[in-house]
């Protein structure tokens, strides 16, 4: 076991310090060291997307990033989506339009969809399918998930129009 490294990162807007072994993945750091267990482990080898987080604006599988690589980075996880008691429009859509069943893949899908909407606020169905293709869901058959992203995108655009 090598010596643990000191890492500083911004997680959901908060500056966080932690000590991790070089072999520990960001997923393991988030879950086991920081107890941010919203990010899920599905396969631990980059194939299911359950551990998706946004790192420096880019969607990543946190199981494929080392904890030490997080030094100086900005990380967004599912725990940072809602603002106080106000759900993110994606969370609201997933809830109200049955975008989840068992819920284990949900945080990963929410983060993948957020990364998409951050970049393309009005995606078409094919864009949504491409951006969510790195996330596996075994319960929903994807139909309602994809509709939820469209519903969230519409409601966010509407809210923006109301603001302007």
């Amino acid at each position, binding site marked *: *076991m090598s010596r643990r490294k000191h890492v500083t990162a911004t997680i959901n807007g908060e500056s966080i310090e932690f000590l991790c*072994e070089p*072999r520990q993945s960001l997923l393991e750091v988030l*879950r086991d060291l920081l*107890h*941010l*267990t*919203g*990010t*899920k*482990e*599905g*396969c*631990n*080898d980059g*194939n*299911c997307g*359950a551990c998706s987080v946004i790192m420096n604006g880019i969607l990543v599988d946190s199981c494929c990033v080392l904890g030490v690589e997080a030094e100086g980075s900005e990380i967004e*996880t*599912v*725990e940072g*989506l*809602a603002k106080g008691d106000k*759900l993110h429009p994606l*969370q609201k859509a*997933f*809830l*109200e*339009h*049955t975008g*989840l*069943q*068992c*819920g*284990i*893949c*949900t*945080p990963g899908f*929410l983060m993948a969809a957020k990364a998409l909407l951050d970049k393309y606020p009005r995606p078409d169905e094919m864009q*949504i*399918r*491409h951006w*969510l*293709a*790195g*996330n*596996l*869901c*075994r*319960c*929903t*058959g*994807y*139909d*309602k*998930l*994809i509709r939820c992203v469209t519903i969230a995108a519409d409601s966010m655009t509407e809210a923006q129009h109301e603001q302007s």
Partner: protein
Amino acid sequence: MNNPEPAAREFRVLGTRPVRPDGFDKVLGRALFPDDFYLPNMIHGRFLRSPHAHARIKAIDTSAAETLPGVRAVVTGADFPHIDNVMVSKGTAGMVNIGDIAANCIARDKVLYDGHAVAGVAADNPHIAEEAVNLIRVEYELLPPVMDVRGAMAADAPVIHEDSLPGAFIALTKKYLPNASRLQLGSGDLEKGFAEADVILEREFTSSTIHQGYIESHVTTVNWDASDHITVWTATQGPFNLRYHLAEVLLLPVANISVVPMEIGGAFGGKERMYLEPVAAMLSKKSGRPVKVALRRDEVLRATGPSSGTYVKVKMGARKDGTLVAADLHLAYEAGAYPGGPIFLGAIASTSRYNIPNIQINGFDVIVNKPTMRPYRAPGAAQSVFAVEQIIDELAHELNMDLIDFRMKNLTKSGDLLVAGFPCLPIDTVAMMEAVKAHPHYSAPLTGKNQGRGLAYTMWFGLGEASSAQISVNPDGSVQVLTGSPDLSGTRMTFAMQAAEALGIDVEHVTASVGGTEAIGFALPTVGSRTTYATGAVICEVAQEVLKQMSARVALLWETAPELVTVNNGVFRNKEDPDLSMSYSEMCEKLFETGGPITVHMTRSPQSFIPGIAVHLVDVEVDPETGKVDILRYTAFQDVGKAVHPDYVAGQMQGATVQGIGMALNEGYFYDAEGHLKNTSLLDYRMPTTLDVPMIETVILESPNPSHPFGVRGCGEHSIIPPAAAIANAIHDAVGVRMNSMPMAPHKVCAAIKAKQTASNRRLRGQT
């Protein structure tokens, strides 16, 4: 009881779409799945698994692992009590062999599949545990592996078990060959039937071993305390089964074991059997600390689930007018390392939707050197239906009949005797056929080259059996529903809705939760499309008793006889005094002064074998160069009885359909000749992604189920059955080839197209 005919009934709550309360924590990342659970002083377990498919264990040396710093306990099979082969009843859900369950959790003398657990280690963190596992030395004597059903049934096949008892998953089988047991179903006179037939087709089909593919791995935390009480925190479909099996394997009283069910990240049949708990418990006992074990994905694929690969031979005959007269089915299903695969369900699902007067089914439960086959959503059905619905399609083409008209001619209706030996319970199969024929998809033109349309029909049977429910009514009017049925996909909501409907109150007043084995009475696992139906039916009965007790309280307050108090839609009235009434909430406020809050608990066993039916209609386009099949349009029709929460019903249909599409086109285990599983990641075990499937249109039919007070049927499994057959029929419609092997992967479709071209070229050359 206050229940008019289900069909005529107007519902207040059923059929609406409230938001599930557990959903909030799930979108916030706060829901507690077993891997999100930590105890003070908890350590982490890992397994050593066999690299061989079939071998005898000569010696195990754990000394190096035990001395690695940070290792707290090491166990092997020798640490466990010897468990004889003994069959234990599970009611209509069959029997289980406790000796087999024990040996599957940790091998003793022989390893029977690649990935069979051989030893367990617990250490301060999973990395150290993994390092320690790699330090254990095992000496094996290799034995020849048996990797497919036909090989296992051959005369010279190596014998996998010297002594095994025949499998009994729902129905008993009889020992037939060293590696296979058999069940036989049938009626009529096969020879006479085929003699009456104008067209007879005989075809062979195979399918690969497949996995349920839940995204959450198996994770458990076990604490064996100083008074020999064991607590298990895990995600399981069957907390009570887990408790019984763990008690039997460890030779402890059942009452010493508590199972606390947690959120469950997908199961589909693959989480109703115990895998990790005996080893985790023994590690906890040895170390004196709570032990968490989380399987890696490769372990999930190598050693849990999967579901049977098959070899199926079907011969069917029909008269010119389209009447089916005879069917002879040979179904050989993998049981995996231990007997008890889904052969009975595969057999009854194969043909029950049609009346075939002369039928014989020979079903074989075949032991092979693969993991023990476990249920996967409508266990065994898609494989036999893949065969039979293709032959039905071919017969309809041969006889020049419309696909629906041909099926209509042979349709099983309520009361018809099924091959399983009992009559079909009420369901409107004719309405289903009419709905399909009337749907625009059925007659929409196909617009491109190499496009085709396929259809498949299925009848599946939902279980009833034991469920428990408890309803507590509080003085503030809030109601708690507690059941022993784990929630895989929203059943807490569908329970709350049924309780609200039965009590005549708004669903907002009702919360539903899943109780541990100490909190609630025995229930069969959440399997077999039984939970919303069977546990729901028990909730309705409990609600009636609650209303009866509340009416008695009202009678007390009104100083009248309880029989004179009626209740409807949350209002109590006096039969003799129409002006006298009391609302549900007024009654609740008076609970303390009339004897205290009301709690009613019941365990009941609703009717089993509730039929449910589905038709799937699919358009595909086949690329003749690559063999890739694209799905262009998909419509799933399913009769679910009263749809409690229509969005959840649609979600069940869509999810099952896409699993069926995965099975049809991509998914399958690859073993090498030595029996090593080669595709142990989710990259190589290729499940459908968003790019592989279209939107799935759902059409919900609601012919009422008289075994449930509101007419509810189970709906979870049925739609996984038709996709493979429907897609195979669509491929034939598109490019004229019959696919006899699942998955219908591009290379197989390509080979079939090439073979057809070669054959037709040969014919052309012969003509000139």
